[in-house]
């Protein structure tokens, strides 16, 4: 049986491990720094640890990393990496270079339970949670890691349905014993699972993005089943209770669907819903998926919609579509074809 990996452990977890091995507490920080700052993959390389401790660690743990099993490159330079997860499942990660910036779109689950009508990941159902190590590994093993300027949790899965591991990932990414990233370079996106979102806001400094897609309850229910239990109005009500400060960004994601959520009535609805909030709105082109009754709004309409929101005082951007030809664009990540599913219960 394979030894458990230390990769993906927080400092507190490593402290517990070293205590169980009878080693001094300060060695935990040394180990964390070897793994996350110096990127070593062999315990023997931890040269400031006693040889006996290195031996103990090697007997009971591992820090080996797997590599991506497949890479696809888009005509626009976007790359999609395929990583193995547990149980013969796979996840996808999108690397998106753009001028001097480069963003990595990481996954938090294999598949997704949320069933949004417009999302390809949702069509494969849910196969499992990613461990903290599997989340961090998407960054650690990226060949272009040194070029990254931003990390967004917008890949496969709903991050707040795997809150514990996402929170630990953010901790490892931002801690001084970890990767030392500024939390301002990390955005976690959610459809609005309220209790988890509350925990995240209160215990993290990373940016938050909320998938809105329509300001109206009855409409949102049609495309996002989560609206039944965590309605967008309640999500916004909760967000209004917090002062996120000037350093922390709150954004709302809005995929533009033709004749569904692209009218002037929707501009009014968004304006009422977000009135007085300091936030950004990101308009996203819809990338059609098979068997979808939805279509993308026209470029002209998206521009008009943006201007309408700007005139209401909202900072509004239109997200560039990247990696569409390799199915790496927003809403297109899926490993359904690679999933070996058990017999379903229906």
């Amino acid at each position, binding site marked *: 049986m394979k030894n458990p990996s230390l990769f993906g452990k927080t400092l507190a977890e490593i402290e517990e491990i070293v205590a169980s091995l009878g080693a001094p507490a300060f060695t935990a920080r040394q180990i964390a720094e070897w793994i996350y700052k110096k990127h070593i993959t062999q315990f023997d390389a931890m040269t400031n640890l006693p040889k006996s401790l290195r031996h103990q660690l090697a007997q009971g743990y591992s820090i080996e990393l797997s590599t991506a099993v497949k890479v696809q490159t888009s005509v626009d330079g976007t790359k999609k990496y395929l990583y193995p997860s547990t149980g013969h499942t796979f996840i996808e990660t999108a690397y998106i270079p753009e001028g001097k910036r480069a963003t990595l779109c990481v996954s938090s689950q294999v598949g997704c339970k949320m069933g949004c009508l417009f999302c390809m990941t949702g069509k494969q159902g849910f196969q499992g949670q990613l461990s903290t190590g599997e989340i961090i590994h998407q960054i650690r093993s990226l060949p272009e890691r040194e070029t990254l300027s931003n990390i967004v949790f917008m890949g496969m899965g709903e991050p707040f349905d795997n809150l514990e591991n996402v929170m630990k990932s953010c901790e490892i990414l931002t801690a001084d014993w970890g990767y030392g990233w500024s939390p301002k370079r990390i955005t976690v996106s959610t459809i609005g699972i309220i209790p988890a979102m509350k925990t995240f806001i209160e215990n993290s400094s990373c940016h938050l993005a909320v998938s809105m897609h329509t300001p109206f309850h009855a409409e949102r229910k*049609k495309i996002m089943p989560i609206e039944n239990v965590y309605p967008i109005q309640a999500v916004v009500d909760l967000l209004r209770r917090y002062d996120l400060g000037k350093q922390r960004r709150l954004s709302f994601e809005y995929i533009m669907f033709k004749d569904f959520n692209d009218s002037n009535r929707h501009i009014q609805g968004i304006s009422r819903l977000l009135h007085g909030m300091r936030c950004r709105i990101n308009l996203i082109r819809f990338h059609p998926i098979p068997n979808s009754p939805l279509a993308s709004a026209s470029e002209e309409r998206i521009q008009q919609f943006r201007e309408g929101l700007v005139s209401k005082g909202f900072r509004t951007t239109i997200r560039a579509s990247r990696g569409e030809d390799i199915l790496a664009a927003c809403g297109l990540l899926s490993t359904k074809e690679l999933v070996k599913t058990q017999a379903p219960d229906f």
Partner: protein
Amino acid sequence: MRNTLIMDAGLVDFIEKLPLSKQIVTHIELLRKGVYMLHFLRTADFLPGQVVAISTDLSVPPRLYSICSGEQDEKLSVLFNLKSDGLLTPKLAQLSQGDPVWISTPFGAFLGDDQPAWWIAAGTGIAPFRSMMRSGMANGKTVIHGGRSADSFYFQNEFLSTFGENYIRCCSGEHAEGLYHGRLTQWMQEQDRLSKDQTYYLCGSAEMVVEVRDILIEKEIPIDKIMSEIYF
């Protein structure tokens, strides 16, 4: 004494409803291996189709469960599947009469009505439809329930006596009298005259809901007529 709640489909004052309060388990039933029905003293009104958040103690994050009792029933009941690697359900399965649990007031907007409609469920996804049935919303409904084995059709006697031929049990893993042998999705695919005027309520796992929704869309059912509740 019941609290009076504004029935607001979960929107107004939603956040104030999230805090959990202590309730007492009146009894727990094992419906089949790994599937339980948990009953509590009822202290709040609810709308059929709503959910409650439940935890055994405040150290375990609460999870949402559809209410499966009727709005006139004395007890409030939920169904749950035991997940052996889960944090909460192994603890729920250990509960017995008199034990405390933490529970929210009911909320949610997966609400039924008395119009003709289809209720489509897999496994414990039948829970909200039992609540609707027991709350006087059975008229004009067709119920499709999918399960792997013949003992997956919880409350089948109640559904059979209420809906008769309009209650279809799709059993993918076994042959048995009165059951359609095959997956629920297969049964749905075979239907060539689905009403475009009725609403289709779907409840269960993401896999089931997404597959059935795709079938309905292929059969040109407008998305306005599809209501989904996914267990997550």
